[in-house]
């Protein structure tokens, strides 16, 4: 009834929550460095001539500037060129890499969703199909798919296709499981009512089961959104694709000693990429379900 | 208007004494709704009192106030001569809710044993004997090792009743315990509740919106009206004890059912008849 506004509020809440998340991580990060990191100094605070020197009370290897750079040096690194004598900034480079990863993840996500929704529809209508294939759908998730990533990349070539396949694989499972639950969620009495109208299976599917399954579908899509990004990064990284965030992680990992900020900046961008994907799904959910009262966070 | 006078209870000892009880809940925007207004009611030991009224008349709220699950905004609640809070600490209450509220992870037996585990004093063997007795009483002796989900709704509610009675509470509070059950199961369980009541002598406060149920079970029926919730009439149920299936077919039973129904209907008949109903409530 309150629809649009409360849906918007739900999305806002999610965004705020994720903002709090980034803030908490940032605070914990610098607190950790304050306690365990390397000493640092500010020579001339805002031109006042005052200087400040901080000597952390404890010393821990993991908090040193090499292992855990200050947030400001990571942000600073984003503004500098990727390589010396290059015009492109690290930020520009990472954004284009992220766009590539995003595209892969999105395609895989779409295909995986389609497969999951189809499988669920088949399983709900055929007991044999469910019994025969469901154990494998479940077992497929007990398999560390990312372990297969390199082989898929070798098998299908070091390019978009392989990564899309991995993202697809990681998406279809949560969608299948959740969608099956959703298709089965309508009140048995609603199904009986449709039966009393002599509705066909097809009509029952579109008029009762499908609408009832939407909230379940979105629950799964939110899980799958993160999984698709992870799949894409893993596919690119160790698999040896020449583009994308995974590649950037592998590259900057090799240059870690000379520039740890670059690897961290890449991870930061990867995290924001994941969060953006999640927020997009969340917005789609809010729009689709806006007339159904509250949606989950 | 002062609280509605009541007929003196059968026994001279008072189980519950409510005086000037008010309850209001805050609503968004700073104002508040009045759920209960000026409730006065005395219940004697061993009585079986039903609270009946339309949705929103505050009967469940009143029950929860007696059980110290929520606090009144004003007024006093005494149970067995002490404040409700003290009575709860002394474990004077057995509660039965509309849903059975059983614990999935406990067997029927263990569910019934729960209050005894929480209350020191009962030894192991004595404990088990009491659990078995109670399950016998509600006819579930053969299901001690079952888990709640293996039982039907009616059986689950019987487990809840056994659990409420196992520690012999002075006061049994039942909040529409059979509201979700079908008519046949409800009538059978009504009979069982009366049997248990006769055997244990516990005082019972029973919330319902079924008129036949209220009349069949009670020694007194308290009729409540909504917005704000107050007692509009109290009707003595003088049907002979013990009550049986014949009771349900007796002339007097029908008269009393009609009387309760009219008392409930009077609330909708506008100001004049509502006032008359209240006046009649005073006469009893």
């Amino acid at each position, binding site marked *: 009834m309150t629809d649009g506004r409360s849906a918007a509020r739900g999305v806002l809440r999610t965004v705020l929550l994720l903002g709090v998340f980034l803030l908490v991580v940032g605070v914990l990060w610098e607190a950790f460095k304050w306690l365990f990191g390397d000493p640092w100094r500010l020579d001339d605070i805002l031109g006042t001539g005052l200087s400040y020197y901080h000597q952390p009370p404890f010393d821990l*290897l993991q908090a040193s500037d090499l292992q855990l750079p200050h947030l400001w040096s990571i942000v600073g690194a984003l503004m500098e060129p990727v390589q010396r004598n290059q015009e492109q900034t690290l930020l520009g480079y990472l954004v284009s890499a992220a766009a590539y990863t995003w595209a892969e993840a999105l395609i895989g996500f779409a295909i995986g969703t389609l497969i999951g929704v189809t499988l669920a529809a088949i399983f709900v209508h055929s007991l044999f199909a469910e019994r025969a294939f469901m154990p494998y759908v479940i*077992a497929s998730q007990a398999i560390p798919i990312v372990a297969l990533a*390199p082989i898929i990349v070798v098998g299908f070539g070091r390019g978009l296709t392989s990564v899309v396949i991995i993202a697809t694989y990681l998406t279809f499972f949560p969608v299948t499981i959740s969608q099956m639950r959703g298709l089965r969620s309508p009140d048995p009495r609603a199904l009986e009512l449709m039966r009393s109208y002599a509705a066909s299976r097809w009509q029952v599917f579109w008029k009762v089961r499908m609408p009832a399954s939407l909230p379940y579908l979105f629950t799964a899509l939110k899980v799958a959104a993160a999984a698709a990004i992870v799949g894409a990064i893993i596919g690119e990284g160790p698999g040896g694709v020449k583009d994308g965030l995974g590649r950037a992680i592998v590259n900057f990992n090799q240059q870690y000693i000379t520039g740890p900020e670059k690897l961290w900046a890449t991870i930061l961008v990867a995290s924001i*990429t994941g969060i953006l994907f999640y927020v997009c799904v969340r917005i789609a959910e809010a729009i689709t379900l806006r007339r159904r009262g509250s949606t989950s966070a | 208007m002062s609280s509605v006078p009541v007929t003196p209870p059968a026994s001279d000892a008072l189980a519950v004494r409510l005086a000037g009880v008010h309850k209001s809940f805050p609503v968004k925007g700073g104002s508040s709704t009045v759920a209960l207004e000026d409730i006065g009611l005395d219940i004697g030991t061993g009585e079986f009192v039903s609270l009946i009224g339309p949705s929103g008349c505050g009967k469940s709220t009143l029950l929860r106030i007696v059980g110290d699950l929520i606090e009144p905004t004003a007024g006093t609640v005494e149970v067995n001569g002490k404040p409700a809070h003290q009575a*709860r600490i002394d474990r004077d209450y057995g509660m039965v809710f509309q849903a*059975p509220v059983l614990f999935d992870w406990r067997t029927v037996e263990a569910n019934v044993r729960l209050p005894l585990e929480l209350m020191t004093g009962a030894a192991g063997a004595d404990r088990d004997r009491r659990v078995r007795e109670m399950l016998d009483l509600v006819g579930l002796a053969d299901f001690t090792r*079952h888990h709640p989900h293996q039982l039907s709704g009616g059986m689950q509610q019987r487990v809840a009743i056994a659990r409420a009675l196992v520690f012999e509470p002075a006061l049994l509070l039942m909040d529409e315990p059979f509201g979700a*059950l079908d008519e046949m199961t409800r009538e059978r369980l009504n009979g069982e509740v009366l049997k248990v009541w006769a055997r244990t002598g516990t005082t019972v406060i029973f919330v319902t919106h079924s008129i036949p149920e209220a009349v069949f079970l009670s020694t007194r029926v308290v009729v409540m009206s909504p917005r704000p919730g107050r007692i509009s009439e109290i009707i003595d149920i003088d049907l002979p004890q013990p009550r049986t299936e014949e009771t349900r077919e007796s002339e007097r039973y029908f008269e009393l059912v009609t009387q309760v129904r009219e008392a409930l209907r009077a609330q909708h008949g506008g100001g004049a008849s509502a006032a008359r109903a209240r006046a009649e409530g005073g006469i009893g």
Partner: protein
Amino acid sequence: MTVAAEARPGSDAGRPRRDLGSSLMRLVPPVLVFLAAIAIWELATAGTGRRVIPPPSAIVAAMGRESDLLTRSAIATFTEALGGLLIGSVAGIVIGFATARWAVARDILVPLAVGASTIPLIAIAPIIGNWFGVLNPLSKMMMAALLVFFPVVINVIRGLVEVQPAQLELMRSYASSPTEVLRKVRVPNMLPFLFTALKVAATLAFIGAIVAEYFGGTSAVIGRVVLTSMSSGRFDVAWAGIIIGALGALGAYLIVVIAERLIIPWSPSFRA
């Protein structure tokens, strides 16, 4: 959930036990599918030699040929994954318990956990390698533990907090102490949530360990064996490694499933 709308006198005796015959019958379709898949795979790839997808028989042969390396790798990787599973779950349970009681702590931790589930945590594998030493198995364990931690902590908190209000009301009517409510209501209520998390975590632990191996470290581990044998064109060995890794994850998953059946046979998750 607890209210069954009508009494069911016919089924009062509880559910009849499913007899052995019919549960064996349920196994027939999946087993048929399995055999058919293996047969088709074998027929489609037989005689193709060292292709990217070798026939099953070649993979089995490779397992025999490289049994020494594969066994050592399996032990190393399984240790990392199970160690990570243990560290991550214990940390998740401890922090979950510590946090569930304080609303403020929950308000900080829950967005943290939700946020963590939307970001590709696995991207910090190389960093964790740097922190704990690339050659130290602890670095792989910590990656696995990090992946395991978040689902466990979220589910422990949810299980402790999402108790039916009526159950708390009942406990209040008994004037029971917070400790009693914790022991008798919250903890049992939390167990099904915990097992749900552990089932996910079992797989995640293997993913974490193997992916961390991809990013560098000692050579006798499943992840490195897969990568190196693939780059040298020995796809049969790579597949053998993948299958062993998968079986490890599947085994851990099944152990959790069995433990769940034994410890909480009453769980609603076992009901259709």
